[in-house]
């Protein structure tokens, strides 16, 4: 679309602003969240334009209807007309006016700006940086291939708030332990993949919503114009945790972003270093419990009892019923015998956590650090009435990881 035309549309939208509060400086709670990318600005513009047009169409329609019900009621108009179609050229001409108007609204007034931003949205070329976003049931994982860093991002709202046992904090359900950090004023390409079912990556302030489909790499892009924190969430039903996998993006100026990158690089290096340390059982248990509650309790439940038919108990000696395939998988790993959950070998336990159980909802947790994996396995083998007394050290996990 030429610059002039854009100007024209912008002016039309300015008229829209008059009627719709969308452009007011303080954005009302019922309005679009503050747009901060080119696409989001486009979409807000289209939305405002739409609101005005449909408000006008609706008012005209409703006006005509109300007028007719009053003026053409039996009391006012006891003798009904008898016409049943347009007669004569002139009437036909008049009748075609609303449809011609509608065609223009569809294909010109609305169609042109739409074409413009559909094409803009599809153009992911010339990006300055690429970030890989992986959706899991039910958290997001972000990787920055150029910087060799990556982490997973989990809901940080405490379970007690969700269960209504504690007062809710300001960002209830829209807060995470580890937000996605992006630089402003750079075109960033997001590559999206899913390891299980379809999810959708949606941050309202960015004006993009992209389904994340297993088996495909989807892509989209953002170019954020203001530093700040932007919150969104998964927008495709992905199972019981669908409401609990928010997306939080912190946009930093390019300089602050580089600084964050180097901090993150050294933090991850430190985490890798701890993998060679030896921790005590108490340390591992404490850490393991935290990891368990954050990552595993959504399925296996905080009490370790799982959910019949879907998620097995971690507590051994309890019955579990599910599809034959799932039970067969568990059995072959040594975690299921005689209808009861059993404690399988340590090596298999590490394998399950690192690689998941393919073909079942049990995901891979390779994105956790070796310390966390060791801790959670130690925890599982010594909690919920399991008393193996075994201690799994980070080094064992690292060894298993490299053996694979």
């Amino acid at each position, binding site marked *: 679309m030429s610059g002039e035309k854009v100007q024209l549309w912008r002016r039309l939208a300015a008229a829209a602003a008059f009627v719709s509060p969308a452009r007011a400086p303080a954005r009302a709670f019922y309005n679009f969240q503050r747009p901060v990318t080119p*696409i989001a600005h486009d979409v807000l513009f289209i939305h405002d334009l739409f609101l005005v047009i449909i408000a006008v169409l609706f008012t005209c329609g409703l006006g005509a209807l109300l007028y007719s019900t009053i003026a053409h009621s039996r009391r006012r108009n006891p003798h009904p007309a008898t016409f049943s179609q347009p007669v004569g050229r002139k009437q036909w001409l008049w009748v075609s006016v609303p449809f011609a108007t509608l065609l223009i609204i569809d294909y010109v007034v*609305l169609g042109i700006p739409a074409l413009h931003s559909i094409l803009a949205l599809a153009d992911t070329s010339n990006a300055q940086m690429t970030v890989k976003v992986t959706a899991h049931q039910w958290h997001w994982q972000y990787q920055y291939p150029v910087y060799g860093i990556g982490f997973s991002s989990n809901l940080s709202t405490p379970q007690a708030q969700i269960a209504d046992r504690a007062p809710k904090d300001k960002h209830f359900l829209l807060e995470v332990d580890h937000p996605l950090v992006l630089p402003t004023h750079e075109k960033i390409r997001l590559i999206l993949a899913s390891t*299980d079912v379809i999810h959708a990556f949606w941050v309202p302030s960015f004006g993009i919503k992209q*389904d994340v489909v297993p088996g495909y790499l989807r892509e989209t892009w953002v170019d954020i114009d203001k530093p700040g924190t932007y919150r969104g969430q998964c927008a495709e039903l992905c199972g019981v945790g669908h409401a609990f996998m928010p997306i939080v993006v912190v946009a930093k100026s390019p300089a602050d972003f580089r600084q964050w990158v180097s901090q993150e690089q050294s933090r991850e290096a430190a985490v890798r270093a701890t993998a060679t340390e030896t921790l005590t059982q108490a340390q591992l248990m404490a850490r393991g419990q935290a990891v368990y509650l954050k990552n595993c309790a959504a399925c296996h439940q905080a009490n370790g009892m799982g959910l019949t038919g879907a998620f097995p108990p971690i507590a051994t000696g309890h019955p579990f019923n599910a599809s034959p395939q799932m039970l067969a998988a568990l059995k072959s790993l040594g975690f299921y015998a005689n209808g009861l959950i059993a404690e399988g070998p340590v090596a298999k336990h590490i394998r399950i956590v690192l690689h998941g159980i393919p073909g079942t909802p049990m995901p891979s947790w390779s994105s956790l650090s070796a310390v966390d994996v060791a801790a959670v396995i130690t925890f599982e083998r010594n909690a919920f009435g399991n008393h193996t007394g075994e201690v799994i050290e980070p080094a064992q996990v690292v060894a298993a990881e490299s053996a694979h």
Partner: protein
Amino acid sequence: MSAVKPAAAHPDEHHEPPRGITRWLYATNHKDIGTMYLVFGTLMLFVGGLLAELIRSELMTPAMRVLSPEAYNQVITVHGLVMVFAAVMPLTAGLANYLIPLMIGAPDMALPRLNNWGFWLLPPAAILLVLPWGLKLFGIGTGTIDTGWTMYAPLSTQSGPGADFAFVAVLLLGLSSTMASINILVTILNQRAPGMTLMQVPLFAWSWVITALLLIAVFPALMAGSIMQITDRHFGTHFFSAAGGGDPVLWEHIFWFFGHPEVYILLLPTAGVLPHVLSTFARKPVYGYEAQVYSFWAIGLMSIVVWAHHMFTSGMPAAANIYFMLSTMAISIPVAVLFFCWFGTLWRGSMTFETPMLFALGYIVLFGIGGLTGLVLSDAAADQQYHNTYFLVAHFHYALFGGPVMGLFAAIYYYLPKMTGRMFSERLGRWHFWLTIIAFNVVFMPQFLLGIAGMPRRIPDYALQFAPLNMVSSLGAFVLGATQLLFLYNVLQTVFGRSGAKASDRVWEGAQGLEFTLPSPPPFHTFSTPPVIE
């Protein structure tokens, strides 16, 4: 064919209906089958409504209070499936069975035994949807299907045994609808009273011609898809599993190839009833009869080629998004023609506002909002923001409650005196209308705003900024639900209380059509001697 069949050839001519349960089990009479459809549909409307109240109770405030996330997902899924397949479709099919033979002067439906089958497949399908909840009470399975009514793979592959029940239910529903559709088509094409040309067929019957053709065209796709889902789940195929080389997006295409026309399958029959009601109470002939027939055709044909406007965020190439956007916008034209004809029918009429008329006018207003917001959603760029939010939820409730459900209320009030021979309570009817239209807007207007503000659909719990509007919406929903009890009471009182005034044959002063030349209620067998059409 009726035109050549001598009247006395009908063996049951002077027989009374059989007594007891066999009358219904072995029913072949179109009025009996129509009545069963209507009763069943109404019952399921209340089941679906109850589930809606559960949803709104959970969403009344943030935090999980009423349902668990698992139960929530099951409730929204069954709410959708029940409303679409077990409430609205059977109700429109019931009207078709009862009314079309009366409107076209036929003695019965063309294929009465098929008709019986068509109906009796429905209750088992509905039972299959809710049975898994019953089984769960006994510790079997995990409850019913929890994927949303769209049943997207591979979530559906993960789902518990409830999903199998649902896919089998879809197969039964598909068979049932296909049988009913074939029957309706054959009846309208072959059984018209001698002298009635196709372009004299009343609009309600015409709307069902297109509905039936759509059902026959698209339901098989969903049935095939359901079988593929079942084999993916149990027999090791990988149609929709990326891990096995399949494609989850394929299911989306199959589902929406069916799902978009389904919207019109729900809508068209009541769009067909509307002109009858409007012209009766405006005391004026239907405006633009031919234009409406051609619009039905246009809507039907176009609806088959626009399905992927439900998939603008699925990652289709820009060219596909553009095609589906432009083709979807085109549907606004025939729909606008319908609106224009409705206005034209009212214009310079001599209107009175009995309950059916109120609901018909409410239809125009609410469905108008549904249609206009549909235009907004057709914009593939802006849809990035609206898709899968409460904006969408509000839109399709305006389109499907505002259209079909309001239209069904209009039709039921309009024809109830004909069917029962008694007038219903006009006072209760008006209360029902006003409370419904006010409460409906209180429920769904806030949902537009919620969607714009960024609340996704299908979440059992939400962030705090969405709390005030959700509270309003839930309170509205409780009133809307309670109001429907007035309707139930009014109908039951008319059918069993027999307290209302006797209805005349014409029922409404301005009513036209063959059905209003018959006594109210019509005898068990009608038009055994075909009427004469000049």
